[in-house]
């Protein structure tokens, strides 16, 4: 069902999301080509995390439409979820299970094959192989984030969704994360991430999208060159708050 020739990883049209009386996304239109690293910027409450949760299919939109790789998310839930890997605010792990047990369990949920090899390679990729038989409860927040990343990568998704992935990570882990993102992009996959570390994000991103008042305020395809403009847009939103 997934078209390999489809160029858009994400296509959102007139997306509206309200939480009660509060409008979070107000007719958002966005197109993200495959093979790009996109960073979503905006102040607290701008709708970044809500948009990521919608793309992860944890939150339903009120109106509008979203497709990923040409597949409508409203009609094809399990298909779209297989296309995405997500690391959101919480690590979302079973604290009283070991890292291996967590990954084995989620491998079963994704119906993966050759699970032992897959877990070995993924844990090495994110640098947690030494702690694989430790219970998650005993790990630092940074390590838990890495386990969450391993879970998100295990099924080799087309689109990686990262919500402030650097939070809780030390500088070495952030560098490791950058390498994973770069490697992922080199395989033609897409990454959509949010962050508050704007300058760093602009260095690794192919596209920067500043959300403003529930819509796209600025969409730059050359974040490094447009840095001043992006920072100004971001700062003006911050000042508006």
């Amino acid at each position, binding site marked *: 069902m997934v078209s390999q020739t489809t160029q858009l990883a994400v296509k959102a049209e007139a997306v509206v999301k309200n939480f009660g009386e509060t409008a979070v996304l107000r007719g958002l239109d966005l197109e993200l080509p495959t093979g790009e690293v996109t960073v979503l910027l905006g102040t607290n409450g701008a709708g970044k995390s809500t948009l990521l949760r919608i793309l992860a*299919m944890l939150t339903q939109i009120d109106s509008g439409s979203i497709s990923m790789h040409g597949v409508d998310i409203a009609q094809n*839930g399990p298909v779209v*979820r297989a296309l995405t890997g997500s690391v959101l605010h919480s690590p979302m792990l079973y604290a009283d299970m070991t890292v291996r047990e967590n990954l084995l369990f989620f491998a079963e949920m994704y119906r993966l094959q050759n699970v032992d090899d897959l877990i070995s390679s993924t844990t090495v990729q994110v640098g947690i192989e030494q702690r694989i038989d430790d219970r998650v409860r005993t790990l630092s927040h940074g390590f838990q984030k890495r386990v969450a990343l391993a879970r998100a990568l295990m099924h080799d998704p087309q689109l990686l969704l990262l919500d402030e992935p650097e939070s809780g990570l030390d500088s070495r882990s952030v560098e490791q994360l950058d390498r994973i993102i770069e490697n992922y992009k080199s395989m033609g996959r897409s990454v959509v991430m949010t962050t508050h570390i704007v300058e760093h994000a602009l260095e690794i991103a192919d596209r920067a999208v500043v959300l403003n008042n529930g819509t796209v305020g600025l969409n730059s395809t050359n974040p490094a060159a447009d840095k001043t403009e992006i920072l100004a847009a971001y700062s003006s939103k911050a000042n508006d708050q």
Partner: protein
Amino acid sequence: MMGSLAIIWAIGRKDLLLEIRNKDVVVAVAGFALLVLVIFTFAIDLNQGNAKLVGPGVLWAGIAFAGVTGLNRAFALEVEGSTLEALMLAPISRDLIYLGKALGNFLFIAVAQIIVIPVFAVLFNLVVFRWEMLAIALLTTLGFSAVGTLFAAMSVRVRAREVMLPLLFLPVVTPLLMAAVESTSHMVNGRSWSDMAQWLQLAVAFDVAFIVVSAFIFQHILED
């Protein structure tokens, strides 16, 4: 089909593993139910006639009230760690998540009953180790799990969930409780399968209806 069963079993097995490590649910359910039984043995003159008359009601009321405690805890753990969202990220249909969680709850309540029912037999001096009791317990536990899993998911995000779950759960399982009490009463009075057939049929119908309906509703209550 086999893939779906594997998913359901994986979720139930995961819950069982966590329960073996934490012992949160089984201890709460068995402890609460045992307490109810012990209190009633003091409150009632338990001659053979009284035991047969009130015993079945005491047993199932104790298990139902205790079950609420366990059901609350089983779902709260998924929400506290946001692991329910991790399950929702997986490319599986929501009804498999429901069935997996219901399987876990079924196993917890069943284990608690393995502890509670022998104690009930001793305290009330009733013969309950019979195939009829096994059938009654299985059908009742299945219904409790089916309804309880749905309502636990509905109430878990509510601030007063400890109050909300029994308010939702107990009225709905009343027909099942009636079937369990009446069937058990027939059994301890030495009646045959045919005497309790109508009550067992009611329990079967309840279970089938609520498993199907709950699996359908569950997917809607998970969404924001």
